[in-house]
């Protein structure tokens, strides 16, 4: 017997996000609705939600870097990142981010997923550098263009780590694939799996890298 009612919780999430209610509220309401529709009583739902929250505290560990990053910003780290890029000949936003994309993919492929990331690399270094490179070439940026470049810097970090990490043998997702298939009697080594992450990694570099070059051209055109 399949229960379709709990799927209503997914609809609530989609509608809630689309109407831009506070996401925490949307998630809590959806969790409670899904649980109740799935036949759990209220206290059980609340307990499940609480247990999930407590078991996943590790995802919030990353904020530990904020005091250091904030302190360095107080002493002019972002300004320094900008100055360095302005002094670098031939540095454009696109080329800079392509360099970062390659760096992030290679590091992730070596299992070094923590070398990079939004709090420790993108906000203090990569984003200001990308903006400075655009300002050097094209003059002062309006807010929309600045935001677009910063968003692209964050996107580059994500693409780099997602499509690099699976080349590393001992990463969680490879082990998950291996485990899931093993439960069906299909035995694979991590190496057999991680080899097949390489073609996608190359495609990711070409596609996102191409978009970054396009970004350079669009920035240039917007100036004329």
């Amino acid at each position: 017997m399949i229960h379709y009612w709990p799927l209503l919780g997914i609809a609530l999430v989609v509608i809630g996000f689309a109407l831009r209610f506070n996401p925490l509220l949307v998630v809590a309401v959806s969790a409670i609705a899904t649980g109740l529709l799935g036949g759990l009583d209220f206290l059980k739902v609340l307990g499940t939600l609480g247990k999930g929250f407590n078991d996943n505290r590790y995802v919030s560990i990353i904020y530990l870097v904020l005091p250091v990053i904030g302190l360095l910003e107080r002493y002019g780290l972002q300004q320094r990142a900008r100055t360095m890029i302005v002094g670098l000949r031939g540095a454009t936003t696109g080329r800079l981010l392509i360099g970062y994309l390659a760096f992030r993919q290679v590091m992730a492929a070596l299992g070094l997923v923590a070398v990079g990331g939004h709090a420790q690399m993108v906000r203090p270094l990569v984003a200001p550098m990308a903006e400075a490179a655009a300002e050097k070439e094209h003059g002062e940026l309006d807010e929309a263009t600045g935001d677009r470049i910063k968003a692209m810097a964050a996107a580059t970090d994500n693409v780099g780590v997602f499509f690099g990490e699976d080349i590393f043998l001992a990463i969680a997702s490879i082990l998950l694939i291996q485990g899931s298939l093993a439960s069906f009697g299909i035995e694979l080594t991590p190496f057999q799996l991680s080899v097949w992450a390489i073609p996608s990694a190359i495609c990711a570099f070409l596609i996102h890298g191409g978009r970054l070059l396009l970004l350079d051209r669009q920035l240039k055109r917007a100036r004329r």
Partner: protein
Amino acid sequence: MIDLHWLYILAGAMFAAFALSSARDGTNPRRWGNAAFWGLIALSFWFGDLFGDLGNGVLVLALVGLAGVHLLGKGSQPSTSTEERQRLSDRLGNKLFLPALVIPLVAFVGTLLFNYTSLKGLGLIEPKSVTLVLLGVGMLVALLYCYAWLRPPASAPVEEGRRLIDSIGWAVVLPQMLASLGTVFAAAGVGTTIGSMAGAIIPSGSIFLGVLLYAFGMVIFTMIMGNAFAAFPVMAAAIGVPILIQADGGNPAVVGAVGMLAGFCGTLMTPMAANFNIVPAALLELKNQYGVIKAQIPTAIPLLIANIAILYVAGFHL
């Protein structure tokens, strides 16, 4: 053995300091809201294991309540001005990069040492938590470096950290909330329902249709759950193994690896992957909270097509 609990104590201390510093910030009209929010997170880090499931549930509702009725604000406390920062940056020069690079450097050297020397056998760090433990170590080293070199006021890291955490605001706990939503989804049987729905749309002997259904199933389910890890076991059980591998004779390594990567294309397009897509938008102070997703969609779609092609060609024709 150093495990996650050491980090939880550290993180709890940091959020407790944020709470105290928020409470004292007269420039924030909603300072008590902020103090309560960061205080609750500190409690969760320190005592979460003692509260029991129901107690943690109540804590979650309190956090949601504070955020839902907009009790969080931002202070306008004086840090250094832009001019002052430019001046400091000119004076300190490129050496400013060093402490910032200490964190990734410790991660780099630490991971290499751990994976490729006998350090793993010593039992010093719990293997599952190595990445996060190294992040914590890197942060402490960088902080000591900054104190020794820049000699800031003792409270400066807390004040500056709070400035950043305030700019992220309630989004700080969104990734954790979404993970617990995933737990509720699993308990309510959402995964099995979606899996059986996908499995019920049986592609009629066409390998290509099967591949399409598998890849789109991964993408959509990943977008709903915010993470491909939750989607993979379900889609593998529904389509990947019975149809693509067993019935159509596809290469299991390709079906497994590229299926997961198709899911990653979904991660790039969903607000449910908050730590990758929503928190950075807040951290970079973008006007549009979906700005990062908007920047990623034009990469994700062609990349998904590429992955489908790889699945089809390498999985069945090589």
